[in-house]
């Protein structure tokens, strides 16, 4: 299991006001942000990324828009700084919300440029994006995945074609001369990742051999990973742990209490991230017909719940750190505790090759964030590298 540290570079000083208004995203005015404070925080977060390289961890960056929860507005912009400040870490973009990007060729150009700059250290996530990203991008939620797949195919062709130019006359995108310079070091393309929460995503990723990642719920991750392995087997290959990724909040400390305290602080991110004005949470077409029928039947007062390992429903907004540990949203404690929790998790999931280490929720101090990264990098990450395919899955 490799470890990829990530942080959404939150603007947490405005959270209280956003929560009081009932929305941290889309319709929360930016007058609630002090640009100089934002600059200070961005520099601090970039220092935390740079520390990961020193302690031997890989790095992941994502992006959101119009929100106090994440100031990263452009994955390639952040990664271009991090690429210059790091030497060994692999750099994961997870990712480009390609169905919300008007220009997929530009995405290919940026990824190729980063791959050259970093000496071939880029891994490329092509993601659907969260529902509340539709409004800031004003992208059409209708036929979203059809647009996603066309952009996906075009980006891969642009990155892997060195004998261009070629033309592309598709349903959503039209170009007459695609011929990107520079082209990527990693051929035919940097490794490709997808994200999702459903069996269908597991199958779609398996059919292309991409890494599939999910976050914060072991209950949703397991069927997706199983669907991936099953589909790969049907197609004649064995999907190892290196195809599976899982994002979780990690808090380590010299004592169990210190680890839990850090995780609890980071978990505030999960408690606040869903605070968004209702109309932006489910644009028409974003979710499947079946999921929407279920939501209409549940009535207007229902809200999203996650379930723990025993199927007990937990409310994201108010859960304790211990409850989050039961849903595999959080791993926390001493380095030994966390290693043992992740080893057991790896066993339950049938082998997860990538841990996406959510190590900064915003409220965490720079000192705590650095200590969390350093301790994990020194005491846990090297041991995780030795975790492979659990025995019972290899024998399946």
């Amino acid at each position, binding site marked *: 299991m490799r470890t990829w540290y990530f942080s959404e570079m939150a603007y947490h000083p405005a959270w209280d006001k956003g929560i009081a208004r009932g929305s941290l995203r889309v*319709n929360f005015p930016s007058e609630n942000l002090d640009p100089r404070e934002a600059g200070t925080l961005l520099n601090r977060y970039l220092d935390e990324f740079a520390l990961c390289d020193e302690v031997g961890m890989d790095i992941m960056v994502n992006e959101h828009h119009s929100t106090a929860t994440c100031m990263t507005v452009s994955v390639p912009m952040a990664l271009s700084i991090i690429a210059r400040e790091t030497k060994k870490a692999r750099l994961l973009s997870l990712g480009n919300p390609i169905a919300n990007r008007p220009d997929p060729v530009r995405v290919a150009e940026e990824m190729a440029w980063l791959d050259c700059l970093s000496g071939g250290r880029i891994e490329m996530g092509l993601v659907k994006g969260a529902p509340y990203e539709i*409004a800031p991008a*004003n*992208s*059409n*939620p*209708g*036929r979203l995945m059809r647009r996603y797949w066309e952009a996906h195919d075009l980006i891969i062709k642009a990155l892997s074609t060195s004998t261009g130019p070629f033309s592309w006359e598709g349903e959503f995108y039209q170009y007459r001369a695609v011929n990107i310079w520079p082209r990527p070091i990693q051929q035919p393309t940097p490794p490709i990742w997808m994200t999702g929460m459903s069996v269908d995503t597991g199958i779609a990723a398996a059919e292309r051999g991409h890494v599939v990642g999910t976050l914060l719920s072991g209950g949703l991750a397991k069927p997706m990973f199983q669907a991936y392995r099953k589909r790969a087997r049907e197609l004649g290959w064995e999907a190892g742990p290196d195809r599976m990724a899982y994002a979780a909040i990690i808090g380590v400390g010299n004592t169990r209490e210190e680890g839990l305290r850090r995780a609890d602080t980071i978990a505030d991110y999960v408690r606040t991230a869903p605070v968004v*004005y*209702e*109309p*932006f949470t489910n*644009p*028409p*077409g974003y979710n499947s*017909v079946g999921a*929407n*029928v279920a939501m*209409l*039947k*549940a*009535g*207007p007062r229902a809200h999203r719940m996650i379930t723990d390992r025993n199927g007990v429903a937990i409310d994201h907004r108010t859960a304790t750190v211990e409850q989050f540990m039961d849903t595999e949203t959080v791993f926390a404690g001493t380095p030994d505790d966390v290693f043992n929790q992740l080893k057991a998790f790896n066993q339950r999931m049938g082998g997860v090759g990538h841990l996406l280490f959510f190590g900064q929720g915003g409220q965490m101090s720079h000192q705590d964030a650095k200590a969390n990264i350093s301790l994990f990098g020194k005491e846990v990450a090297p041991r995780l590298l030795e975790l492979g395919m659990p025995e019972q899955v290899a024998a399946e």
Partner: protein
Amino acid sequence: MSRNVTVSGVKLEIEEKGQGRPILFLHPGEGLQAGRSWFDKLAESHRVIAPHHPGFDGSVLPDWMGTVDDLAYLYLDLAAELKLENAVLAGACFGGWVAAEMAVRNTNRFAGLLLAAPLGIKAGGVLDRDITDMHAISRAEFMRRAWADPSKGEIDYTKLPDTELAGIVRGRETLAIFGWKPYMHNPRLKRWLHRIDIPTHLIWGEQDGIVSTAYGEAWKAEIPGATMETIPNAGHYPHWEQPDGFASRTLAFTARL
């Protein structure tokens, strides 16, 4: 009452009732809702033909179809298929936009155009929101803006069968496909409204909070000879909220054609 026809390769579910001058009625973004009394009231004096838009209810949205232009040509083909003559072309809300796109292309089969609170044109400047962003407000706020009396419009979705809910969900995605960007309008349509060469009547609910009567005046100004009247105690769906007032005004309009 409901039947399927295939037009230009598209399977359409159509509601049809009544005798007299045909009205081809194009429904709002919220669906046809032929079970409300407006449909029977119109059918007392007209042959009402109301297709469910492709993607809504039993009508199929083909992969290749995705613009209001497509709908305009589809329904012109439908009018030809049904051999309509001297018919009334009517549309409400989103359906009014589609009807206008048809009328700027070809009015040969129609004697008059009736538009109830149509979406579809850009009247104000870049910072003016002519059409309420129905997708950026809560359902409760939408109901307050769309109805003079929101209780008349409430639907208890928890009581509907799955098949009907699936039809509603597909309809919502379809409306997004056709109208998300630019939002519920064609920036160039206003420039072509002068081509409408049949008598045109606009009907507006006085409490319409989705598109205002001032927006209706912008339509009236662009269509030669167009007339407009408002209906009290009605919001964005006057045919649903004041079915008697809507039917009588429709009859008064069709009687003078």
